[in-house]
C-alpha cells in the first residue's frame, strides 16, 4: 500500500527525521494561507501515488502567497501524467505547501527487504535526486549498502559507513546515523516494504533535510496497522480496481487491452494474459477469482466485464483445484440469467469436477464457445475480439 508524500513526512517527523516546514492543502485558498504562515519562498507539490512529478510539472515554486495560490489552483483538479502513470494520469486533489530550502547537495537513503539475504537492506548514495536504478547503471561505486539483522538492529557503525560513503563530514555523520536509525525504526515498526528519502538534502547551513519521502507498506501486514490503513487515498486507484474490490474480487488489475479475463490462480492468470498477447490480442485485465464456494464472485466478475466498456470478448480459464469447476459453471449461467451479455464468451474448464461443470454449461442453453485447452482458449478469444468468431 502507498501513502502520500505529506503523510510519509508526518510519520518521519514524528520519528525525529527533519523535514521542511509545511502542510497539505485541498484548496488554493488553503495553499495561500499556508504560504502566508510559512513566509518567504515556498514549494507547491502535487500529491499523487507516482514519482517523476518534477519533470511532469507537478512541483512549482512560489515567491509570494499569491503565486502559491495560483500554482495550487493550476495543480488542484488536474491530472498528473508522469513516466510512472498511464496516459490518463492520476488526479491531484491535494498539494503539499512547504518552505523552499537552499540546497547544497542531494543524497539518497532507502530501506527494503533484500530477497537474496532475506534481511532489511539499507542503501545510501551521494547521487541523490535521480532514480537509484539509474545510479546503479551509471555509477554503481556511489551506492553503499548494509544488511541489518533484526535481532541486533541497525548499528551506529553501519550508519557511519553509509554516512562516510556519502562523503558527509563532522557533525553530519552523527546526524545522518541518527536519521538512518529513525528510518529503520519506522521501517520495522510499520511493516514497510520500502522507505525512501530521495533526495535527502544537505542545506546551505549544513543540516540534513528529507526533501521527499516515500513509504510503502506490506499489504500482508496491514491487519496490524489500522492507523496506516486509514491513510489510504482511494482516489489514486483505478475506478475499475475499486469496483472490483467492492464486489469481493481482490486480485484485479486493469490493463490496456479489450479482452476480459477470469482465471483462478495468480500465476495462471498472468500466463493467460501472456498467451493472449502471444496469439495477437491484448487483455483488459488481470483477474484471479481465487478459491470459491459460492457463485457470487463469478457473477460479480461478469458485472465487471459488463461495466468495462472496452471489453470485446471474455475468456474464462479455470483449472480447478481448490476452486470447483462446477461452481464456476453455475456462476457463468447465473450471470447470463441476470444480465445482458452481448460480447462473446470463451470458456476453458479443467480440473476438479470438470465433467459436472461442462454438463451445467451445455444444458443451460447459453451462447458460449468451449475451448478444448489452454492455447485453444486464448486463440479463440483473440479471434472473437477481432470479430472473427466461428
Amino acid at each position, binding site marked *: 500500500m502507498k501513502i502520500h508524500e505529506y503523510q510519509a513526512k508526518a510519520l518521519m517527523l514524528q520519528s525525529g527525521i527533519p523535514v521542511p516546514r509545511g502542510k497539505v492543502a485541498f484548496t488554493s485558498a488553503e495553499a495561500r494561507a499556508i504560504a502566508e504562515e510559512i513566509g518567504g519562498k515556498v514549494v507547491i507539490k502535487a500529491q499523487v501515488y507516482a514519482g517523476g512529478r518534477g519533470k511532469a510539472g507537478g512541483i512549482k515554486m512560489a515567491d509570494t502567497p499569491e503565486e502559491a495560490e495560483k500554482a495550487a489552483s493550476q495543480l488542484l483538479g488536474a491530472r498528473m501524467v508522469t513516466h510512472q502513470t498511464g496516459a490518463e494520469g492520476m488526479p491531484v486533489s491535494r498539494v503539499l505547501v512547504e518552505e523552499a530550502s537552499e540546497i547544497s547537495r542531494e543524497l539518497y537513503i532507502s530501506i527494503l527487504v533484500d530477497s537474496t539475504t532475506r534481511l532489511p537492506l539499507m542503501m545510501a548514495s551521494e547521487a541523490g535526486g535521480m532514480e537509484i536504478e539509474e545510479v546503479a547503471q551509471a555509477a554503481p561505486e556511489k551506492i553503499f549498502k548494509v544488511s541489518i539483522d533484526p535481532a541486533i538492529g541497525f548499528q551506529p557503525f553501519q550508519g557511519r559507513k553509509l554516512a562516510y560513503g556519502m562523503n558527509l563530514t563532522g557533525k553530519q555523520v552523527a546526524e545522518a546515523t541518527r536519521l538512518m536509525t529513525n528510518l529503520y525504526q519506522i521501517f520495522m515498526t510499520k511493516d514497510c*516494504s520500502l522507505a525512501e528519502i530521495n533526495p535527502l538534502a544537505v542545506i546551505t547551513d549544513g543540516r540534513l533535510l528529507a526533501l521527499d519521502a516515500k513509504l510503502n507498506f506490506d499489504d500482508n501486514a496491514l491487519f*496490524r496497522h489500522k492507523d496506516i490503513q486509514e491513510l489510504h487515498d482511494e482516489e489514486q486507484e483505478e475506478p475499475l480496481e475499486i469496483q472490483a474490490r467492492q464486489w469481493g474480487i481482490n486480485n484485479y488489475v486493469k490493463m490496456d487491452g479489450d479482452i476480459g479475463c477470469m*482465471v483462478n490462480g495468480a500465476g495462471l492468470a498472468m500466463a493467460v494474459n501472456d498467451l493472449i498477447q502471444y496469439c495477437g490480442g491484448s487483455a483488459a485485465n488481470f483477474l484471479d477469482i481465487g478459491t470459491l464456494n459460492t457463485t457470487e464472485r463469478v457473477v460479480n466478475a461478469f458485472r465487471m466485464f459488463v461495466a468495462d466498456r472496452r471489453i470485446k470478448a471474455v475468456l474464462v480459464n479455470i483449472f480447478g483445484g481448490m476452486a470447483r469447476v462446477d461452481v464456476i459453471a453455475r456462476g457463468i449461467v447465473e450471470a447470463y440469467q441476470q444480465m445482458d451479455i452481448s460480447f462473446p464468451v470463451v470458456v476453458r474448464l479443467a480440473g476438479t469436477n470438470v465433467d459436472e461443470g461442462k454438463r451445467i454449461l451445455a444444458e443451460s442453453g447459453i451462447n458460449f464457445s468451449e475451448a478444448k485447452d489452454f492455447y485453444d482458449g486464448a486463440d479463440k478469444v483473440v479471434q472473437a475480439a477481432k470479430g472473427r468468431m466461428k
Partner: protein
Amino acid sequence: MSILVDQGTKLLVQGITGGEGSFHTQRCIEYGTQVVAGVTPGKGGNQILGVPVYNNVERAVSETEANASMIFVPPAFAVNAIVEAIDASMPLIVCITEGIPTMDMVKVHSYLKGKSTRLIGPNCPGVISPGKCKVGIMVGEIHLPGNVGVVSRSGTLTYDVVAQLTSLGIGQSTCVGIGGDALPGSTFTDILKLFEADDDTKAVVLVGEIGGTFEQEAAEFIKSEMSKPVVAFVAGSTAPSGKRMGHAGAIITGTAGKASQKIKALSAAGAIIAPNPAEIGSTMQKVLTERGLL
C-alpha cells in the same frame, strides 16, 4: 527416488482440525500419504480422520516420529507454527498459509539459519512425488509417476503444466511449489540442487514469474552446476510495473523483476525457454526426445 517426500514420509498436519486443514488432510490420505499426527492446541487427545491430534508438535513427534509437517494455520499465527516445528527439529516443513507479513518471514529465516529444517512455502501448493506421497493442496489425479522434476512459484499454472506433461505421457519425479511470496523458504536454486542430485530426475521444468531475482539466481546455478536439461517459462511478460499481480512477490519494482530479464538470464544459462505457457509440455517432450531421455 524422488525429492523431499516419498513412501517414507510420516506427515504431521498443524491446523488439522480447521476447515481447510481437515479437507486437504483427507485428500492427502486418499492419495496414499501416511498422515501420522495432527496438532491443534487445546484439542489434544482427540482423533480426526483416524489421525491422533496432539496439543503440540514436540509431543506429536516423540510419539509418532513424524518427519514432515504441513501447516494450515492463519497468517497471524503461522510464524509461531513454523517456529514450533523448527524447534521440534522437523526435517521438512511445508507451509500452505497465504498472507504472512514479510517481516515475520525475515525473522523466521534468521531463526532457521544453522538449523537442519528445510522450509517450503509459505503461500504454496506443496510438494508431490506422484504415486508415492502428496503433501499439499494440489490435485493428485493429474500427476503421473516419471522422471521430470517440476519447480514453480505458482499453483494453478503448475497444474496446467503437469497436465500438459501427463497428457504427453511424461511423468514427474517430484513437483515442488515454492510459493508466491517475496521470501520463500526454499528458492529455485535450493530445489534445482536436489533435482540435480536425484537419480530419478532426468530433466526439470522451472516455472518462474515477475518480481525478485530468484530466476536469475537459478540461472547462475544452471550455468555452473546443472548437468540436466531445464525447460523454463516465466509468467508475467504482459504485467505492468509497480502492480502486485495477485502473489505478494509478483510485483515489478526494478528492471531485474521483469519477465524479459529473467528469460534472458535463463536462456543465456542454457535453459530451454518455452515460447508460451501452453507449450511447456511439448517443449519438454522435444528436449527429452532430442537427448534420448524418453
